[in-house]
């Protein structure tokens, strides 16, 4: 009967704890999870993070409640004579129940994660040269070129103009093509919820659609040598008219260097190919 009591109290603690924490997770923490709601990809990450938290909550509360209860109820009294506990070596029903519940949670998370991945066009993550989760409809391709130690950008639909600054139009589906000229970098546009490794010789595609205008941070997220920590920049999401003005200005400014640029390509193979000198 005592055993019933312990189990009952742990169950009650778990239920009450979950009932308190779950609404906080769903209504307070969840909507405020990073990376925010500035793009479709970021929103689906927030959504995903919230679902993960919701699934985790009961397990976390159960384990912590159990631990707290065990520490309180099963402790040996101070100065108590050394005594053994009951020789319980397992309990098949609870083992099976645990296996079933954790398996169900894991399978749900894997299926949900996959569905969310496809529904969000890859959620802003790099998908390699042949993306399988991609949007239907027109896209604006933007190339991101990582090099030691700066990102530069090319807009193939605007004459392949190369720029040192990243500006994106709002409410248009962007198709990033991320590549590198040397070592591995990683293009991380934090507020856009975009991260794609820049590998030399690889075209890494990521999709995003910004739904709000504003600035965003660009950071390199893969150790790329001396100035890795300084490989940051600020990008801008602007409305369509501002974007057109900006890109026209860039095309004008960078006319002198235009004749030297290689034809737009998804990857580049510049010299020196191995060692300089």
């Amino acid at each position: 009967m005592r055993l019933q009591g312990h189990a009952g109290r742990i169950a009650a603690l778990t239920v009450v704890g979950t009932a308190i924490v779950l609404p906080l997770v769903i209504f307070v923490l969840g909507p405020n999870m990073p990376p925010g709601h500035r793009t479709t990809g970021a929103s689906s990450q927030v959504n995903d993070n919230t679902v993960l938290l919701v699934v985790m909550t009961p397990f976390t509360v159960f384990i912590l409640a159990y631990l707290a209860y065990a520490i309180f109820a099963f402790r040996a009294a101070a100065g108590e004579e050394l005594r053994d506990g009951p020789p319980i070596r397992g309990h098949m029903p609870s083992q099976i129940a645990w296996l079933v519940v954790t398996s169900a949670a894991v399978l749900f998370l894997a299926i949900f994660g996959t569905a969310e991945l496809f529904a969000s066009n890859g959620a802003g993550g790099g998908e390699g040269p042949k993306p399988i989760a991609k949007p239907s409809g027109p896209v604006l391709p933007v190339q991101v070129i990582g090099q030691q130690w700066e990102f530069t950008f090319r807009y193939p639909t605007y004459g392949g103009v190369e720029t040192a600054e990243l500006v994106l139009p709002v409410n248009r589906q962007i198709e990033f093509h991320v590549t590198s000229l040397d070592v591995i970098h990683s293009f991380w546009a934090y507020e856009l919820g975009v991260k794609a490794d820049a590998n030399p010789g690889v075209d890494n595609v990521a999709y995003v659609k910004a739904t709000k205008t504003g600035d965003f941070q660009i950071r390199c997220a893969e150790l790329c040598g001396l100035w890795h920590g300084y490989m940051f920049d600020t990008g801008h999401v602007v409305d369509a008219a501002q974007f057109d003005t900006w890109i026209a200005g860039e095309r004008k400014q960078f006319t002198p260097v235009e004749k030297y640029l290689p034809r737009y390509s998804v990857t580049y193979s510049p010299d020196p190919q191995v060692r300089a000198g």
Partner: protein
Amino acid sequence: MNFRRLLGYNLLTAFVLGIVGFYVGWWLGHQFSGPSIAYFADTGQNDIALFLAYLVGLIGFLSGLGFASYPIQRLLGKPPSLREKETAGTGRYFTLCTDHKVVGMQYLIGIGAFIFVGGLNAMLIRFELLSPTKQTFNANNYLTIVGLHGTMMMGMMTSGILGPFANYFLPIMIGARRMAFPRIEALTFWLLMVAGVILMTTVGYGGFPTGWTGYAPLNDQANMGMDSYIVFFALVGLSMSLLGLNMIATVVTMRAPGMAWGRLPIFVWSVIATSVLMLLAAPVLISTLLMVALDRTAQTGFFNAQAGGSPYLYQNLFWIFGHPEVYILALPGMGILLEILPVFARKPLWGYRLAVTGMLGISLLSWLVWQHHLFVSGINADLRPFYMLSTELISLPTGFIFICALGTLWQGRIRFTVPMLFALAWLFNFLIGGLSGVFLSDVPSDVTTHGSFFSMAHFHYTIMGGLLFSFFAAIYFWVPKMTGYAINERFGKIHFWTMFIAFNSTFGPLLVIGFLGMPRRAVTYAGYLHGGNTWVSISAFFLGGSMLVFVGNFVWSQVFARVPVGANPWASKSIEWQLPSPVPVHNFDRIPTFGADPYPYGDGDGAGDSTAPRVVTAPARPRP
């Protein structure tokens, strides 16, 4: 003083031959790379010479310790000298000794020293990050510090529990007098020590900029300090695979009568699960590093995209080693946890078979998840759902470990000794580590958390919160058995509480800071993260301070106070506690025979009044 002894195989000879070997290799490298293989004179660096210097130096050092003597004498058909069997005096701790208990002690102190170096670097990292832009260490040195911290910790902690505690206690637990390959056992230790020194020499060669992952092609651009990293990790890999081989061979062949597989203590099972990974994963690392070394010296192009190679190849090979590696770090901690809980809850281990299944399951699954490190790299995008599933599946066997731990506490009579506190803290830390891991396994969430401080904090929760806490649990639990002297409990508790609170106060906020957009290994960060980073740095200094409390307590208790503990201070029923402390040279007068479950708490013979295990001693088997 007997000067003739100085000329024999000992640490002094080893140092002399090691240094001579280093310069012989250096000289050779310059002879050989001049006319036959061109190194680029413009660079002013000769990687071939440095590789040869390290390798010849290593051979010199090991020969000086006497490792060459046995194989050479066997080859010449002479009876080998058995000097290494010498078993008395403090001197045996400083030389090649094949007593598994001496090797265990050597590992404990040796690894402890290198963990101190790794920890010092962690303090320097946090000092640097006190300011978002201003630099104490310049960008070069910061990357070297980050690389040294990560590489040293990863390399040394792989053997952090198997080295000291499995070497010492595994033979005892299975009723053996030694390991299967005692010379290899000693070799694994000395390889690790030489490797550690080699890694530290990187500072003199310009450091290395790659962090512990050493990604190509950045590793090809790096200074000569990169060669120190390559040789270090290859030697660690060699040491790991030999250690794993030895453990497996010992458990398979050396079990005492009655020690059926189902009666192995759970710690032994965790060692088996770890050893399988060590034996199979480390060779991948060694061959990968060989390819890097060839890229750097012989101008091959394994990892150069423009020469027909691929940086992806390096990433794949590295993580095929690297993901099992992180379970090599996690599994022994689970073994320690489940070994300690029954003693202080006075209960048999709950769900023994489930726990074994959990450990072997983790061991198996850890081979199938490595591409989750490459979720945003653009490789095999169509396999991401599979790797998402396989990664999340690991939470099932990990869940087994948790439920077994919780079940063991059920209706126990818990005594909150220092080792027990560390074990319970393991449960809390690893819970957070595991939950944060779920975000990284889920592709959409991983897009933001990948390569950020979130993932860094996640693996510190599992490795530091898991492995290092269980390492300390094992120290407080077993060192009294190894030395015969108690560790002061009051200071042990101060150490525990400062470490536990400071640890969570350091890495908890780092999870948040990572989610808010701070990339790993960056010497600068955005201004809005300044407050959080300052908090974390101050907590980290407290965490460092708690380690000093430990070192002080350890030295005071073991060197000065020296309170004898007797055979069985914890009233454990495991076999090692039935022997005197410290364990005598031959472990057992008679090889024991095992008759039952390793955790006979509460079994029939009156609650708790018996501390004796179900061991039936039998006459020793005739020695061959």
